[in-house]
C-alpha cells in the first residue's frame, strides 16, 4: 500500500509541475498591465509602478519564474493585495472548511447515488427504474445554484430547521451547518453515481460468476454483497475520482450561496478584487487538491479489488 502510494506520487509529479507552470503562464499573459488592471482607472502612474515593483512584474520573466518556484518551496505564495496578509495564511484558514464540504458532497453523492442505482438495476425496465433514471438525469441537469436556492428556501426560510449560512460552532453546529451545503454540492455527482451504479450492476449481473453463485444456491443477499456489489462499485469509484474537479467547482458556488468561508468564497473575493497573488495561490491549491483527491479515491481500488494491488 505504502509503495503503491509512493509510486503514484512519483507518477503525478510531472502533472503537478505542469500545472504549476500553467498557472504561472496563465496569470502573466494578461492583456495589458496587471498592475494597472488591479488598481483601476483612477490609479496614478507612480502607484502603478510601485505595485509593479511590489509584485516583481518589472523583473525579467525567467527571474519572476524562479522567484515563484523559490517561493513555492518555502510555502511563500506572496501577499494578498486585498487582505494584506500572506496568501499562505489565508489558504490555510480556508482549506479545512472546503475539504470538509468536498467530503460532505462526496458522502451525499454515494449515499444517494449507490442505493438508487442498485434499486434501478435490480428492477430493470420497471417503473421504479424509469423514475430513478429521470431523477438521476434531473440531478445532473440542475445547476448547483438551483439546488442551493431550493434547499435554502425549504429548510431555512420555510421550515427554519437548519442554519442558512456560516460554519456553525461545536461538533453539532458544524455538522448542522454542513448538511445543506453538502446536499447542494453532492446532488450533481449523486445523479452521475446513480447512473453509473445502475449500468455497472447490470453489467455484473450478466457475468458468468454471478450465474455460478446463483447456481450454487447461495443466499441472494450473499450473492449480491460479495459478488455483485463489490465488483459493481469499481467503476463508481472511478467516476467519483474523475469528478473531484467538478465537485470542487460546485463547492465554489455553494460557498458563495451559503456564505460559507472557504476556498471558493476566497476565490470569489479575490476575483472581484482582482487580487492576482491570491487567485494564483487558490488555483494552485485547488489543482493540487484535485490531483491528490483523485489519487486518494484511486487508492480505494486496492480495498475494493485486491487484484489491482499486485
Amino acid at each position, binding site marked *: 500500500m505504502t509503495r503503491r502510494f509512493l509510486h503514484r506520487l512519483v507518477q503525478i509529479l510531472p502533472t503537478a509541475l505542469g500545472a504549476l507552470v500553467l498557472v504561472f503562464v496563465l496569470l502573466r499573459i*494578461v492583456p495589458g498591465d496587471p498592475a494597472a488592471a488591479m488598481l483601476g482607472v483612477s490609479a496614478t502612474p507612480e502607484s502603478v509602478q510601485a505595485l509593479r515593483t511590489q509584485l516583481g512584474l518589472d523583473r525579467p520573466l525567467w527571474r519572476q519564474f524562479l522567484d515563484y518556484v523559490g517561493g513555492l518551496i518555502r510555502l511563500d505564495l506572496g501577499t494578498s493585495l486585498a487582505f494584506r496578509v500572506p496568501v499562505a495564511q489565508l489558504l490555510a484558514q480556508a482549506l479545512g472548511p472546503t475539504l470538509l464540504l468536498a467530503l460532505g458532497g462526496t458522502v451525499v453523492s454515494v449515499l444517494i447515488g449507490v442505493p438508487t442505482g442498485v434499486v434501478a438495476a435490480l428492477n430493470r425496465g420497471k417503473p421504479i427504474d424509469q423514475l430513478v433514471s429521470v431523477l438521476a438525469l434531473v440531478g445532473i441537469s440542475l445547476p448547483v445554484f*438551483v439546488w442551493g436556492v431550493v434547499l435554502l428556501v425549504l429548510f431555512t426560510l420555510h421550515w427554519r430547521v437548519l442554519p442558512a449560512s456560516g460554519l456553525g460552532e461545536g461538533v453539532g453546529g458544524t455538522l448542522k451547518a454542513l448538511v445543506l451545503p453538502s446536499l447542494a454540492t453532492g446532488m450533481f455527482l449523486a445523479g452521475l453515481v446513480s447512473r453509473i451504479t445502475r*449500468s455497472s450492476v447490470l453489467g455484473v449481473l450478466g457475468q458468468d460468476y454471478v450465474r455460478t453463485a446463483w447456481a450454487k444456491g447461495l443466499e441472494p443477499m450473499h450473492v449480491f454483497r460479495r459478488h455483485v456489489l463489490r465488483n459493481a462499485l469499481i467503476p463508481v469509484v472511478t467516476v467519483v475520482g474523475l469528478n473531484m*474537479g467538478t465537485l470542487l*467547482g*460546485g463547492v465554489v458556488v455553494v460557498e458563495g450561496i451559503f456564505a460559507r468561508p472557504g476556498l471558493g468564497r476566497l476565490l470569489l473575493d479575490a476575483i472581484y478584487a482582482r487580487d492576482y497573488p491570491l487567485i494564483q495561490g487558490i488555483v494552485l491549491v485547488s*489543482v493540487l487538491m484535485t490531483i491528490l483527491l483523485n489519487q486518494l479515491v484511486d487508492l480505494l481500488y486496492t480495498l475494493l479489488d485486491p487484484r489491482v494491488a499486485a
Partner: protein
Amino acid sequence: MGRRGFAGGWETSAVRRLRRAIGGSWILWIASGFVILLGAVAFLAPYLRLTDPFAQSLERLAPPSPEHPFGTDRLGRDVFSRTVWATRYALAVGIGTVGVGGTVGTLWGMAAGFSGPFVQEALSRLVDVFLSFPPLILAMVVVTLIGNGVFPVVVALSFGVAPRFARVARAVVLAVRVQGYVEAARALGASSPRILVRHILPNTLDALIVLATLTVPTAILTEALLSFLGIGIVEPTPTWGNIASMGQMVLREAPWVVFAPSLVLLLTVLSFNLLGDAVRDALDPTVSRGVWMRRVERADLEPEPARIASRRIPAG
C-alpha cells in the same frame, strides 16, 4: 472517390442508426422538440414582439400575470422576455464552445496520436495538466483575465473542453493508425495530411460527435454558473445564470425571478442530455443503453457489409 466518400457513408449510416434508436421513444421526441423550439426562439427573438428585455418600469417584483408570464425583477424588467432573449446567449455559448474547444482539442489529439513518441508524450502530458484543473475554477480565472461577454466565456470554457476532445481524438487515432487500410493508403503513396483527413478523421467522428453532444449541456450549465457568480456574461445582457443571480437577492419576495430561468435552464440541459445519451447509445455500441432507448437489435449495431467495404477501400 467523390464528395460522398467516407463522410457521406458515415453520415447516412449514423443518421439511420440514430433514427432507429430514437424511433419509438416519446420522451426523446419531446426533447428533440424542445431543442428545436429553443433554436427557433433564439433565432426569432427579435421578431417575437416581446416586451423590451432592458426596459425598466415601476412595476417591480410583480408576480406572474398574463402581461408578465414570469413576473418582473427588481428593476421592473419583464423576466419572461429576458429569459427568452437569454436563450440566444445560452445556445451561442453551448455551440461556440463545442466549435472552438472541439476544433482545438481534435487537432491537438490528432497531432498527439499521429506524431512521434516524443511529441506525443509532450502533448498527452499537456492534456493531463489541463485536465487536472477543476473546469469551473479554470474558466473563472480565464474570464477574470480576458474579460466578460459571450466570446470570452466561450474561450474560457474551451480551456476545459479542448483537452477532453484531445484525449478522445488521440485514443481513436492511435487505434486507427495501425489498421490495414491506413497502411494500404500509405503504401499507395498518400501523404500524412491526406491519410489524416481522409482515413483517420472520419473514424474519429463517432466518438467526437458523442462528446460534442454531451459538451453542449455542460457548457450551457457552466456558463450559467459563471454568470450566476457575476463573472460570465454580465448584466444588463440577460442570461439564465445572471437572471437567477439577481433573483437570489429577492428570493423571499419574488421567488419566480430565480425559478423561471432555472426551470428553462433545467429543461434545456435535460433535453440536451437526453439527446446526448441517445446519440451515444446509437453511435457507441460498447455503452449499455439507458431505459429510454428502444431495444436496438444486435444487427443494428453491426455496420452493414457495404459500409465496411466503403470504409476500408483506400481512397489513394
